[in-house]
């Protein structure tokens, strides 16, 4: 029988290893799996590559992984936000590697990984510093940059509701990167506010079908 629910945050992140590439959903403070991040911080793995739109701010979420020096590299689009002091400190120290890309390219690269594509040509970034060293091509008079898929070992995502098969429904703009990350990782773990009975989610508004999800954990209220 298919039951992806796990009983604790610890079980939810079991198996993450030092050196892993970890996608973390969310945009700003919206749709972020704060409890999974806290569990990851306490888990013991380090030398992580964090793939997330932002690089944390203040003393919560991704910022705490940076503060505790568990992160070797950040792959993101917008590391600098109000209160992103830990990222800025490590960056100035040269203690962290940054791979920066346009946000649409970031989302599309993860989707390509999840969709089994080998790469795509995007006009975004053509003629800019972010295309340096990349293959480019002119197609029908427009310049494009070839971008490869972006995969991860683990995706930690956040949804509003889940059922035991891992179907996910989101709340408003909390959806953001969570659906594409769910597709693009070997192991996808979803933190949710509510676990509901099978059949309670509207089949027309399941934005992440359960096939993309390996584990579901209910929030414990730890952060």
């Amino acid at each position, binding site marked *: 029988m298919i039951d992806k629910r796990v009983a604790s945050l610890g079980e939810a992140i079991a198996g993450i290893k030092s050196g892993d590439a970890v996608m973390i959903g969310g*945009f*700003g403070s919206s749709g972020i799996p704060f409890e999974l991040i806290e569990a990851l911080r306490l888990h013991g793995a380090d030398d992580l590559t964090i793939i997330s739109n932002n690089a944390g701010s203040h003393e919560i979420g991704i910022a705490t992984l940076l503060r505790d020096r568990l992160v070797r590299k950040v792959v993101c689009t917008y590391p600098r936000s109000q209160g992103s002091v830990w990222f*800025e400190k490590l960056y100035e120290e040269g203690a962290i590697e940054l791979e920066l890309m346009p*946000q*649409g390219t970031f989302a*599309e690269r993860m989707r390509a990984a999840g969709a089994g594509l080998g790469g795509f040509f995007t006009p975004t970034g053509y*003629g*800019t510093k972010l295309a340096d060293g990349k293959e480019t091509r002119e197609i029908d008079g427009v310049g494009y940059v070839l971008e490869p898929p972006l995969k991860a070992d683990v995706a930690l995502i956040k949804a509003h509701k889940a059922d035991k098969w891992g179907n996910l429904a989101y709340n408003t703009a909390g*959806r953001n990167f969570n659906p594409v990350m769910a597709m693009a990782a070997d192991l996808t773990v979803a933190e949710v506010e509510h676990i509901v009975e099978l059949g309670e989610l509207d089949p027309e508004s399941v934005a992440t079908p359960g096939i993309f999800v390996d584990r579901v954990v209910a929030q414990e209220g730890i952060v």
Partner: protein
Amino acid sequence: MTRLEPAQMAERLAQDIPDGSYVNLGIGMPVMVANYVPEGREVIYHSENGILGVGPTPEPGTEDPDLINAAKQYVTLIKGGCYFDTADSFAMMRGGHLDIAVLGGFQVSADGNLANWATDNEKYPPAVGGAMDLSVGAKTVYVLMRHTTKDGEPKILDTCTYPLTGTGVVSRIYTDLAVIEITENGPRVVELFGDNSFEDVQAVTGTRLLPPAA
């Protein structure tokens, strides 16, 4: 010389947003444009994080923690709005479906190149977000920025010195002094604010401007 305040600059730009437009307003001064769209025009605002139909700031106490805009401020959804994921949101942006993007700018070149995401300060971490996708994807890109830097240096130049966001993407620049259109022949002043003369504006511009058409 007449120098518009940011709110006045935003108000001027807002006059050029047609009824029925789908619009993305960049972080900073551009978001002020929403306050000045003339009565009777229906405009739908897009936010890169997956919202079409961004509404006003919620009443205190009614904020939805997930419902924020690109500047990470709490917003609401208007009736007829909807949500989608980031891949779909950027498909919308990059695919030419937005009518207008209003972006801030560090520099704009005579041929419509835009620099608005990084300076030449290597210590400071760069951040690009959705700026490049918007600049290349929206049908029309308006830049809303002061005519010169705080130090009085021109921001409209022969060539951008800061890293580019997009090449040949800017249609119009709305500054505190004038409205300038990027044409095939170069940047043309299409409107001078107050008593500003063409020569006044040319004097603080780093590239040759064309005078208003007769």
